[in-house]
């Protein structure tokens, strides 16, 4: 029923004005569902008119300056040259506008004016893109926000399910606590950037699992801003104030979290964290001593999936409006040096980069070796 209604609306929109081109809402299933999985059963499917390649693709990044973003840009460049897609892209550009909404909107509009076929972006704000969405539709440009996505269903977007990630963090930690026979105590939750939708969703997931558990848990929340330095400080402060925690559930800044536990002499406890190389090194080193952890990452490789989705849409394939990329999960017992972490590479580096179902096979070391000088 829902889909019929959507198709009808799309038809009406088409009749209302030929000036508004853009995607048609169609019924699923979409192409390559292992890679482009729809977010829920209710997710709409979109289809653009097929056109001849090769395509001109641009990435409009916002903030630049942390490892994640730099790794994302390197991944984008490497993937554009990957044999699986290189022949389909004739022109590839990456710009970073800083945290400045008019500049990001301007860059997107400029690429539309220049006649680019697809524009991939990490939105600086979940709102405020109405104008460029309208322009992209008029000019038949495929706009693909990923990572920080928009609060709209008018564009195709790519992300990981942050709520599920939060739940998995808690479920794993509860499982480990259960195995240790612990059923009560204080749990330290390390949050990210306040006001950010990713932080909000992960925290909701983390807390609802603990609330539903029959154990007697007291949650203590601190803000680590997803930054190693800040996280190390706030975790050290929390340990100083509260004494001992049964577990630490962090959603980022994992290197700092481990460092703070180690420095304070706090016993190793079950933990959760992102996919930083240093965190995985620590898990593999100290798991016998009790640092049993789960590592799930928001992968910088999402950019490659967004690029692949854009090209697929340009080829006229049916695509889900909101694409859910599978969570790259690794627990302490699954870690293997040289495979999903690298003991010879820097700590501050995100290990999860590959997505085999999507043919995105750019591994961590390949990215680190990418020469920055050629473009």
């Amino acid at each position, binding site marked *: 029923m829902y889909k019929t209604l959507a198709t009808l609306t799309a038809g009406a929109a088409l009749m209302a004005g030929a000036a508004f081109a853009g995607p048609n809402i169609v019924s699923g299933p979409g192409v390559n569902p292992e890679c482009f999985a729809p977010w829920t059963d209710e997710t709409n499917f979109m289809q653009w008119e097929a056109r001849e390649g090769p395509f001109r693709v*641009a*990435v409009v*990044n916002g*903030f*630049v300056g942390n490892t994640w973003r*730099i790794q994302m*840009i390197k991944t984008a*460049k490497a993937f554009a040259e990957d044999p699986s897609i290189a022949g389909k892209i004739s022109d590839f*550009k*990456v*710009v*970073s*506008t*800083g*945290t*400045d*909404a*008019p*500049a990001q*909107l*301007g*860059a997107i*509009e*400029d*690429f539309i*004016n*220049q*006649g680019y076929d697809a524009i991939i972006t990490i939105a*600086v*704000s*979940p*709102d*405020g*893109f*109405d*104008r460029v969405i*309208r322009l992209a539709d008029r000019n038949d440009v495929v706009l693909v926000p990923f990572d920080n996505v928009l*609060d709209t269903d008018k564009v195709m977007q790519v992300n990981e399910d942050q709520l599920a990630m939060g739940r998995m963090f808690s479920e794993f930690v509860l499982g480990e606590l259960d195995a240790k026979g612990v059923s009560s105590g204080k749990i330290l939750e390390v949050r990210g950037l306040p*006001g950010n*939708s990713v932080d*909000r969703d992960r925290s909701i997931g983390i807390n609802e699992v603990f609330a539903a558990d029959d154990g007697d848990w007291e949650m203590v929340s601190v803000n680590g801003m997803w930054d190693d330095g800040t996280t190390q400080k706030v975790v050290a402060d929390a340990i100083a104030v509260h004494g001992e925690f049964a577990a630490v559930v962090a959603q980022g800044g994992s290197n700092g979290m481990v460092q703070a536990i180690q420095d304070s002499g706090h016993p190793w406890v079950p933990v959760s964290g992102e996919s930083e190389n240093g965190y995985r090194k620590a898990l593999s080193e100290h798991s016998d001593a009790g640092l049993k952890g789960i590592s799930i990452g928001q992968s910088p490789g999402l950019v490659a999936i967004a690029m692949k989705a854009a090209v697929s849409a340009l080829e006229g394939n049916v695509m889900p409006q909101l694409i859910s990329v599978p969570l790259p999960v690794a627990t302490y017992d699954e870690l293997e040096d040289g495979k999903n972490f690298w003991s010879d590479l820097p700590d501050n580096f995100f290990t999860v980069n590959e997505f085999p179902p999507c043919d995105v096979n750019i591994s961590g070391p390949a990215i680190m070796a990418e020469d*920055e*000088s*050629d*473009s």
Partner: protein
Amino acid sequence: MIGKLKATVLRNRGFTGALVLFAVLFITYQSIHPRGFSTAVLVQNSNEVVALAFVAIAQTIPVLIGGLDLSVGAVMTLTNTIASHVVTGTPMQMLLGAVLTLGAGTMFGLMNGLIVVYGRIQPIIATLATGAIAIGLALILRPSPGGDIDGDLNWAATNAVFDFAETYGFADNGNAAWIQPFVNIPVPLIILLVVALGVWLPFKRTVTCRTIYAIGSAEGAAHLSGLPIARAKIAAFTLAGFFAACGGLYLAIQTSSGNADLTQAGTYTLNSIASVVLGGTSLMGGTGGPIGSMIGAFILRIISFFFRILSIDPLLQPLIEGLVLLVAVSLGALRTFRVKNKLGLFR
């Protein structure tokens, strides 16, 4: 006639330099853009520059008295969040909302002025504090980005005159003969020029404005000459608040939403200072003017436009942008080589 022009140019060396630099950058950019000199590109350029240009104009006036207003970006953010709540409903309600938004910014500027003059606190410290207050208020008003500003207003205000007329269905949907000479002019550019020139040019003729320049040149002398120092300082900060609010209001219409973005507020304050310097206004005060800063904001934006047409490594772009900016600002300092009286270096 030519003599008079020459005298004007020489008197406004900084401004002329900025204008020439802008013209060179702009014409080069448009020439290598695949759709250069088209309305679409001009509309895009104008949209991107308006908020920054307003904030740069706002910054200029306190700089003219030898102060810095660190709250301009924050006031822009605050008014942006206010506008996202009040600029909704019928056209009349939206107009009222816009007036309310501008009024709030102006009152905030007035408060800055009163604190600086009667609290006798250095402008840079006073506005650092009030800027934090503005951000705090903005966060209360919009804990997470949102708001629902009219889509038609957004579309009309961010396009060319033709689309404006088409959206609101006047002048025969933009096809009337009398409107033809104007149809390709971007609406944001008109808003910027009308507000900036409409407020600044009349104000420039007042004693208060002359006093602002006099304070920047030599506050002691201005005081001994019996000029209204307190009034001029308060006016400078009040106008800064007003122009910052113009930036915030436009930003809200442009994004049809409000966002209490802390980082963005800081970026705009810093960029406003850069625009002021690029536009030929001395940070010591006394010379320059807001129209120059507007050009300065244009220059600042155009530098980054080039990255979208040229193939430059994304991770090298900030470095190159910084280098170009440094060269541009240094051009303004060239005159120091020609100063005959070394005391002149202190100006």
